[in-house]
């Protein structure tokens, strides 16, 4: 089964972002979206997440699905600690101990154990971004929307997170829609890579990567060639 967006229309004032735009996402796969700044990637995620209404078009396959979202900005509650921000989205039906267990697990996943009781104002930029990642992962969902989740993180942390993420993903095979500007990230994580044009958005290229995630290496010729193609599509 697939998630389908059909005949999407969206405009802000005079700027037309989507004009009769269609795209489909295979369930249980990671789809990476690349595209110029300001083209409409965040807008698409917001429409998929039902945060903003489209002007026209249909979404299919999203009903009844639980979605989590790593927003482009961390969007943390300033008056809640790291732990509090993550617990905030957890189901109240869980026992407090269980909530605590889940929270702790994802805090250590993003390597913030020592900062669990810090308020956002006292965290560095990358640390806030990590809280936002932990929150999205802690929320039990069928689909994850990610808007540049790894920005502002150092390379080591980035690689660790990519590894952890692919490990988690192997287990539950959630549907992931992953917006990024980093071609390497897309190559390491995506089952499918889509490149968007400037607004009004059109799909410039769409590539599938046959190699299983756990076997990929950025040094392999296959990925190197793919990278060149993608960079060309991005006009870089």
């Amino acid at each position, binding site marked *: 089964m697939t998630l389908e967006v059909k005949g999407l229309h969206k405009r802000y004032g005079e700027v037309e972002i989507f004009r009769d735009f269609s795209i489909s996402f295979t369930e249980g796969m990671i789809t990476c979206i690349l595209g110029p700044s300001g083209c409409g990637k965040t807008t698409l995620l917001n429409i998929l*997440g039902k*945060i903003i209404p489209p002007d026209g078009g249909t979404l299919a396959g999203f009903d009844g699905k*639980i*979605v*989590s*979202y790593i*927003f482009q*900005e961390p*969007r943390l*509650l*300033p*008056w*809640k600690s790291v732990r509090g921000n993550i617990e*905030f*989205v957890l189901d*109240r039906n869980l026992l407090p101990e269980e909530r605590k267990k889940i929270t702790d697990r994802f805090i250590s996943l993003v390597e913030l154990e020592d900062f669990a009781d810090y*308020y*956002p*104002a*006292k965290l560095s930029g990358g640390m806030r971004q990590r809280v936002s990642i932990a*929150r999205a992962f802690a*929320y039990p969902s069928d689909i994850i929307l990610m808007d540049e989740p790894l920005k502002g993180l150092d390379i080591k942390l980035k690689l660790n997170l990519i590894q952890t993420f692919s490990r988690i993903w192997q287990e539950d095979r959630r549907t992931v829609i992953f917006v990024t500007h980093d071609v390497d990230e897309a190559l390491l994580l995506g089952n499918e890579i889509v490149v968007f044009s400037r607004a009004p958005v059109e799909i410039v290229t769409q590539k599938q990567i046959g190699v299983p995630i756990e076997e990929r290496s950025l040094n392999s010729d296959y990925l190197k060639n793919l990278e060149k193609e993608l960079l060309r599509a991005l006009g870089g």
Partner: protein
Amino acid sequence: MKISFTSRQYVSLVSVIIILVTWKFFSLYFNSEFVLPSPEKTLLTTLKLFVDDRFLVTVGTTILRSLTGFIVSFFLGLLAGIAAGVNPYVDAFLRPVLVTIRSVPIIAIILLALIWLTPGTVPVFIAMLTMFPFICTNVSDGIKSVDRDLVKMAKFYRVENARIVKELYIPAIMPFIISGASSAMGIGWRAIITGEVLSHPRYGIGTLMQNAQTFLNVDVVIAWTIIAVVISYGFEKVIRWSERKLIIWRA
């Protein structure tokens, strides 16, 4: 015993001294204890009030009234304000009610109030009419300035509405609530005393003030005023103290 001041407290003290000096100046200028008695004489009168055996019951009753009025208005105002801030229809519905409550002169409703209520509760009622619209407006305006992205985030993660209110809106509008509470308490305290002047309950600062005024004991009127100001200052301190306790998350 050692008394130490922070420099801020020092500045506050200077401010109090300036008030006293201005007062002394005017009292010398008018040179009539019926227009403005001197600060010394008035402070003496104030001290005398303290030892009066009706002092505690009078002050206590008035404080009790104002706390009752405050607490009721605070919670009603918070509720109504949140509802109005979240839902534009509630806002549209409440607006005429608020404007009416806020601008109906006391003189127009005092009789109704006296008929429904006892003289002791009329001041509470009047204070509520003063404080409620206030807190309500402050809260609903505060809610309109809450970061919508955070709200979208919370709604996205299907956090229950009650928790969105409790854990997102209320902390976000805390500065508005504090500001509203501080103003409301100040103005409500005045309204309580005015109400006591108008309804003459058996015990109350306003009752004694009015009596003193009728009997032309201007120093007693001002002595009660000082007591009222000091108590009000105490309330303010409590509110600012809770502000510090409640807003610990700022950088």
